[in-house]
Structures are given as structure tokens and as C-alpha cells.
């Protein structure tokens, strides 16, 4: 399927070609080559070992957990796992880089080719599912952080992040629109969070992307690309692509050529600017790190990694559709985030038990509740809601009452409102607040008999074939019952009596 996203230039349509290098911070207690802690937000320079500060004679020792997380991530994108990989030094001077080199993997990465599928999204112009190739994943050290606002003439250095493990996930230039790139980052983030190898927190810098963009006339060879560094949200990734693609088209159409260069994104203006040109590009003098032996993975280790993988987003979504009978939309919504499916699966289990039916029998009801009803109530209450009252137990009770016909949909919402505000028991609320439907056929029959007696003309019309009047009788009955009659019971009795 060819993407239809095009830049309209003066000389015709242009296609955008996008590749992303996503840097994802590995979830692990300690750094890639030292025992220092990795928690976010600690006081500056409190999580720095002698190795991280590159004191004389200090040596890196690989942290097995970081390797494991990267291998599991590779497996989650069905990639080639390289049993032999090696660390290389990338040499450059900067104050946030204590060793004067970053330990990375250039020549022999841990993970080879894989792929992920972005989902069809009509609204975003993605007509059908699309497979995006992933070139490789390698692991490397993060740098420290410079703080320029602490002193009038000096910069301060915080080395807490120095040496933290990153996975660099390099896509192939397979994306053709900002929407596809956005979907790719979201899907990748989702997979990482399912696997638990990265928390995906873009605001805290746990995930950031280098965005490679070029333009070409459809069907022609790739154009010269630019790389915009360190973009830290999905929205910004899409903005960078829009801006860069249009800028490049302008450059070319005005007779210029696109320079292969590194650029910076300014979130304030939504524009990019030159950081360094190809001529100024660093010569990183990569060479194998002589402090580290090649990494050789054993079969047992790989098997353990594979066995530890959870059900992944695509598989889960399919199961939701095929086994739980959910709509594609609901299945996708519920499986997008770890928290969402976690809450859903818990509620589904409790609700099925309470209702006394199989999970698949109640899944649609629970999904509608979880995706639309419950969030709606929560949102309408704003600050009045105490989220800690939103227990699976309470929600399941409401769903069970609704399933038995004891409460209506409207009553369910009202009860849930009170639950969220007060934490009271839903069944107790239904009883004491009078939020239950009347299913007592005697009361309903009496009301209906009255209505039939008082509306002989309408009854005659109905019996004469004016079926639409049935709604009128329902409305009258509900009014008479002050809205608390069980609609199913009302319908049944009306049908019986009207004939």
C-alpha cells in the first residue's frame, strides 16, 4: 500500500521518506557498566560511581540485566538476536562525557533486523496495517547532563545519567508520513512498555528520537537526508517531519540542494535549525573497546529471555477480537497501553466471577464500561472523584447489578458517581438511594392497565397497525413508574396486553 501523504510543491508532489533512531532508556536498577543506581530525579551527582566519573584506572563491567532487557526487546520485534556482539568506543570530547568516549556498538550490534506493524488508522491516513522494518538495536551508555543556569559564567555537570543503559532502535527508512512516524513511535513505546524494558516516559527523557527526513519525487531515488536530534514527544516528531519535509522541498525547488547535516528542533517555534554540517561532523574514531570482551550469549540465557516475554500488543489485540468477541476498535483501544489492558483484564475477571458467566460472555459489556462509561463518569466529576475508589470490585458489582436487570444504565452511572465520591458499596447505594429498577410485574401491570384504560383511542390505533405508538405506551409507563421500571419487563407486559 503506497502512502498518499504528499507535500504539494511548486513543481508537483513530493514524497517524504522517514527513518527514526529511537533511544530508549533500559529499565534496570543499575547502569550499563557500573553498579550505580539509575532512579530519575535524584539530587545531582548522587548516583555516580568511580566508573561513571571515569576516574583513573576504572573499568567497565557489563550489567547482565541491561543485556537481557535489550535481548527481550529484540525478541519482541521478532528480530535476529546476535549471539556474538561487541562494544566499541565512540570518541569525542564533551563535559558531560567523562570517559571522553561513549561505549556503544557500531560494528556488531546485539540485535539485528526485525520489524513492527503499525495499525491502520483511517483518520490519520493510514489505510491499512503497515510493517516497518527495524535495522538493528544496539546498547550504549547515556551521557551526563550539563546545567547552564546555575552560575553566571560556568556550566555545571550532573553525572547521574552518565553510564545509564540505552537501547538505540534504528528503523529502516520505511515511513512515508508524519502520521506513520507517530504511529511507529507509539507502537514501539507500547511494545517496550509491554516488555518492561523501557518505561517509555518521553517527558523524563526515557525515550527520545533522532528523526531522519528526506524528500523525493514519488518513485525516484532517496534524497539527501537530514537528522534532527533528541526529539522527545510524538507530536514533536511529527512536527519535525512536517517542517523538514516542507523546508527541503522549498530548498530544492528554489534551486538549492539539501545538506546532509545534523539539526536541532525548537519546540517553541516548531522549526529546526542547523546544529552541525557534514564538514563539521565529528570523526568518532570508533574502535573495539579493549576493556571489554565480546559478548557471547548462551542458549540457556536466550531461552530464559524468550520465556519471560509477556503477551505482546498484536497478539493480545487478536485474542480480544477472536476470543472475547470485542470490536476491532475496542480491542485496539484496550491493548494500546499496559495500564489500560491491565485494568481491563482485572475488571473482566472480577466481573465474570460476580456475574457468574464466562469472560467472553461479559467481555463486550465490560469493555464498553471500561472504555466509555467509567471514564465518562470519572471525567464529569473532575476533582470530586477519588480515583482510589475505582476498584475492580466496586465496578464489577455495578456491572453485575446491571446484568441482572436490577439497575438501568443511567442508574449504573449514578451509582458509580457516588462510589467515586464516597467509596461506598454500590449495592448499598442502590438500596438506600432508591437507585433500583422496579421489576415487580404487579406494580407495572397496574400502571399499564391504567394507561390502556385512559388511552382507548391510541390502543385502537396501535391495534389497527400503527406500531410506532408502542413507544408512546413505554414512555407513559416509565413516566408513571418515575423512570424506575425495568424496561425489559415493561416491554414484555405491554406486548402481552396490547396484543
Amino acid at each position, binding site marked *: 500500500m503506497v502512502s498518499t501523504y504528499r507535500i504539494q510543491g511548486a513543481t508537483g508532489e513530493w514524497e517524504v521518506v522517514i527513518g527514526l533512531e529511537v533511544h530508549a532508556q533500559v529499565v534496570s536498577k543499575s547502569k550499563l557498566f557500573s553498579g550505580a543506581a539509575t532512579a530519575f530525579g535524584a539530587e545531582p551527582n548522587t548516583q555516580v560511581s568511580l566508573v561513571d566519573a571515569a*576516574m583513573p584506572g576504572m573499568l567497565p563491567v557489563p550489567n547482565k540485566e541491561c543485556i537481557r532487557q535489550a535481548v527481550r526487546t529484540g525478541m519482541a520485534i521478532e528480530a535476529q538476536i546476535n549471539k556474538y556482539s561487541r562494544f566499541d568506543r565512540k570518541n569525542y*570530547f564533551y563535559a558531560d562525557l567523562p570517559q571522553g568516549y561513549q561505549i556503544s556498538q557500531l560494528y556488531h550490534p546485539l540485535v539485528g533486523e526485525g520489524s513492527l506493524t503499525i495499525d491502520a488508522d483511517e483518520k490519520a491516513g493510514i489505510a491499512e496495517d503497515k510493517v516497518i522494518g527495524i535495522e538493528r538495536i544496539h546498547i550504549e551508555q547515556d551521557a551526563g547532563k550539563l546545567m547552564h543556569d546555575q552560575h553566571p559564567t560556568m556550566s555545571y555537570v550532573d553525572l547521574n545519567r552518565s553510564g545509564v543503559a540505552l537501547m538505540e532502535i534504528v528503523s529502516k527508512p520505511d515511513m512515508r508520513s508524519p502520521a506513520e512516524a507517530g504511529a511507529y513511535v507509539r507502537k514501539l513505546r507500547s511494545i517496550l512498555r509491554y516488555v518492561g524494558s523501557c518505561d517509555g516516559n518521553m517527558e523524563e527523557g526515557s525515550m527520545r528520537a533522532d528523526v531522519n527526513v528526506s524528500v523525493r519525487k514519488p518513485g525516484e531515488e532517496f534524497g539527501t537526508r537530514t537528522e534532527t536530534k533528541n526529539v522527545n514527544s510524538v507530536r514533536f516528531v511529527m512536527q519535525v517531519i512536517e517542517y523538514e519535509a516542507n523546508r527541503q522541498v522549498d530548498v530544492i525547488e528554489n534551486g538549492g540542494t539539501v545538506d546532509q547535516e545534523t539539526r536541532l528542533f525548537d519546540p517553541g517555534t516548531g522549526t529546526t535549525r542547523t546544529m552541525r554540517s557534514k564538514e563539521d561532523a565529528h570523526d568518532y574514531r570508533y574502535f573495539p573497546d579493549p*576493556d571489554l570482551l565480546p559478548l557471547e550469549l548462551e542458549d540457556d540465557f536466550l531461552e530464559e529471555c524468550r520465556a519471560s516475554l509477556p503477551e505482546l500488543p498484536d497478539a493480545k489485540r487478536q485474542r480480544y477480537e477472536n476470543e472475547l468477541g470485542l470490536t476491532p476498535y475496542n480491542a485496539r483501544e484496550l491493548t494500546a497501553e499496559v495500564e489500560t489492558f491491565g485494568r481491563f483484564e482485572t475488571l473482566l475477571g472480577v466481573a465474570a466471577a460476580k456475574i457468574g458467566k464466562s469472560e467472553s460472555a461479559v467481555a463486550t459489556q465490560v469493555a464498553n464500561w471500561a472504555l466509555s462509561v467509567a471514564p465518562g463518569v470519572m471525567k464529569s466529576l473532575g476533582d470530586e472523584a477519588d480515583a482510589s475508589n475505582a476498584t475492580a470490585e466496586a465496578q464489577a458489582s455495578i456491572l453485575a447489578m446491571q446484568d441482572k436487570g436490577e439497575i438501568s444504565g443511567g442508574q449504573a452511572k449514578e451509582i458509580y458517581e457516588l462510589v467515586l465520591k464516597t467509596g461506598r458499596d454500590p449495592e448499598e447505594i442502590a438500596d438506600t438511594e432508591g437507585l433500583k429498577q422496579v421489576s415487580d410485574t404487579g406494580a407495572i401491570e397496574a400502571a399499564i392497565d391504567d394507561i390502556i384504560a385512559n388511552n382507548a383511542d391510541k390502543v385502537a390505533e396501535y391495534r389497527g397497525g400503527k406500531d410506532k405508538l408502542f413507544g408512546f405506551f413505554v414512555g407513559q409507563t416509565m413516566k408513571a413508574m418515575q423512570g424506575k421500571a425495568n424496561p425489559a419487563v415493561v416491554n414484555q407486559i405491554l406486548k402481552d396486553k396490547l396484543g
Partner: protein
Amino acid sequence: MTDLTNLGVKDIRDGVAGGEFTAREVAEAFNAAVAEAAALNAFIVTTPDHALAAADATDAKRAKGEDLGKMGGVPIGMKDLFATKGVQTTAASHILEGFKPEYESTVSQNLWDAGAGMLGKLNLDQFAMGSSNETSYFGNVTSPWRRSGGANTDMSPGGSSGGSSAAVAARIAPAATGTDTGGSIRQPAAFTGICGIKPTYGRCSRWGVVAFASSLDQAGPMARTVEDCAIMLEAMAGFDPKDATSLKMDVPAWEAGLSADLKGKKIGIPREYRMDGTDEEILKSWEQGKEWLRDAGAEIVDVSLPHTKYALPAYYIVAPAEASSNLARYDGVRYGLRDLPDGAGLQDMYAATRAAGFGDEVKRRILIGTYVLSAGFYDAYYTQAQKVRTLVSRDFAQAFGQCDAILAPTTPTASFPLGENQDDPLAMYLNDVFAVPASLAGLPAMSVPATVNSDGLPLGLQIVGKPFDEQGVLNAGLAIQSRANFTAKPEKWW
């Protein structure tokens, strides 16, 4: 009491354990000898209190009947490349002048744990780069040896472990640590008539040793006898989880395994080591060495190491390449020298700090290393050198199919006067031509004194062993030692 300074590691250890003298008496004697020998400039800092404290601890243990350790009561010199907690550690550089680590290197800690004490931090070539101990920021080390015939020319103690070799030869330390990247233990040992062994790469932890070339650096002992080297190496070596290249192997009982009986052993003589420009007297001592080993029961066989002539050029690509990266951390940001000119930015600070903090030889090697790793040159130099390295290792592996150890000269010449080779780096580099191949292959190699030349200067013989076969190397060394009867020692002039 001054006689105590003539004793080596084994004699001191056994004497203290047997109650012939106390560890404190030994430490005091060596502290005094060190204090008298300032003219040698062997030490950058002296630590008499450290030596005394360790001695007192040993004496106290003895009083309680506790085990004194492998090095109990032996004060040693510590090459100033090893980080020593709270004691200035400089690698003989200006850039680390005043740097006092918060940590102790694994090797030095192992020695203290074995009962040794520290007389001081020994001078060396700056960042272990040099073969004459003339590149130290803290001045040359002068060899205790002088040429016979009355000339008072200051001679080189070799390098980079020149402070170590000078101190041990001058008997101001019974033993010292050295490090060997391309001959830095063996060449100074040969120049000063002492023993020194570089074990198999990975035997001694590199943790806390200021790095020169990580894939080559190995620590080892320098002492006056093969036995002393065996004892001290046992104390220094061992697996260290903090060094990813450390060998996960038990340390053999080398001292207990010593035997000068070489019956059934084959000693290889590499024909390619017969190089133009090698001193006639060196060649003669090599012949003599063969006779000694034959006399000890070994069979002498010819072997070939065909890529020998490429080893030195390959070494001078690999070692500077690694050094250029290893020394990047000395940038003035976190510790050591910082030169921040008025109004300077980060790049200016780097330039000023590194210009002021590194000596010429260090800068030369950083430049060479940076060049050979650069885009467009990497394959021609670094990749090619790595291939040579593989071929050199293969040469040894094939030779060891025919022999158990290899005998060769340690150096192509005896010690030379300080200043003689200073303007000719290539001539200086050639000093390591016989030492470098074993370094590239990571093999255990030792220098033992053979004789003195017509100038009265010591000459050493080198034994190179199979991987992990330090015992075979030590035993061949012992066979030479027991036949060479090397009793020459420098006349005290300092």
C-alpha cells in the same frame, strides 16, 4: 642492621616469620635506604609510615601466632601507575599531579592483604610511555649502575618501570611492582640486572591501574630472584570481577612449583630474533643461555616466528590507538590539572589543560593514536595492525607446538646513557623489539639477568611461555639463574 637491605622477598618473609628480625626493623632499614637514595629519583613520593604500619601489623600478627601472609613483613615499592588510596597517584604526569584516589587498585590491595607494606610510589615514564624513564614529569630516574672504567655518565634504568628497576637494583626496595605494555617490566629488569615477569594477560587485575593500552597492560613483580618474583606474583594475581578481561582461573602455587630441572622440556630458539643491529655481546649471552638450559636438561630446538618484524610497527599502532582514547578522560573537568585561561570556553580549557598536563612523548602517542583511528586511515592502520597481532599470536601458537618455552634476548642492547636516544623516538622504540611480540600475544614472559657486558652493565635473557604457563617460564628462569650466578651489583655512588 643495614644488611637487611640486601635481603629479598623470600629471605625477609622467612626471617620475619622465623623471628630472626622484626618486620619493623626491615621497614626502618629500607625507609632509611630510600631516604638516602634521593639522587636516583626512583620515588615520586615516599610513604615510610605506610611501610611501618604494615610492618607493625605483621609483627603483631606474629606475636599472636597468626598467618603472616605471602608477603608478610616485606616492604615494597609501588609503581606510581597503581592507584593507592589517599596517596598521590600521578602516572608521572603533571595532569595528575596532586591526585589522591579514593580507592586502592586491586593489585596493590592484594599485596597489602598479603602482608606487604609500601615504601613509596615509584617513578616511571609518563603514563608508562617510554623505554628509558626520561619522560616522567618528575624527572629522570638514574640507574644505580654505571659503566666500568670510571665514567660517571648517568645511565638509563630502562622504562617504563624505571623507578622500580632502579630501586630494586639499588637495594632500596627488595621488590617492586611493575607494569608491562610492550616490555616495561622486562626491559628495565634487563637493564638493571634484576628479574621481572609479565604474566599472561588477565592474570593481574587492571582495576585501579592507570590505563595506557588496555589490551596489552599487565602488572607483574620485579625483584632480584626468580623465587621472589614467584612469591610476589602469587600475591598480586587473581580473578577480579571488577575487570572484565580478568582471567577466571585459580592462582597456581608458583613458589611451591619451582624447579630448575628441565628434563623433558623443549626450549625454542626463534631464528627471526637474530636481527641486524643486535649487540654481539647480547648474542653471545643468548648462546650462553642455550647452554645453561641444555645443561638443565632441556632440549634446544629451532623455531620460527615469521611475523616478528611486523610486531613492533603493529604495536606502535595498537598501543597509541588505545592510549589516545584511554587518556581522553584527563580533560580538566573532574580531577587533576585544570588550565582555564581567562574567558576560555570548554574547548579552550581542554586544549590548555592537555597542552600543559601531558609531556611530549604522551602527546606524540595521542597524536599517532588519533591518526590511526581516523576515518579513512582506520583500515590501513588499525585493522591491519590487528591482523598482524593475530598473525603474531598464531606464530607463537605454532611454535609452542614444537617447544614448551622460548628463549630470546630481552633487549637488543644494554642500558644506554640518559639523553642518548631522547631525540630519536624510533631508536627508543626499537629497544622493545624483542619484548613486544609476547605482549601482542598476551603471553607470560620474564627477564632474568644473565651476565654483565664489557662495560660492566647487566644483560638479560627473556623466556616466553605458553598462555597460563607462568610456572614453565619461572622454572626456565630458575634454571638460568642457578647457572648464571649473577652476583654483580651496582657500586653505591648515591
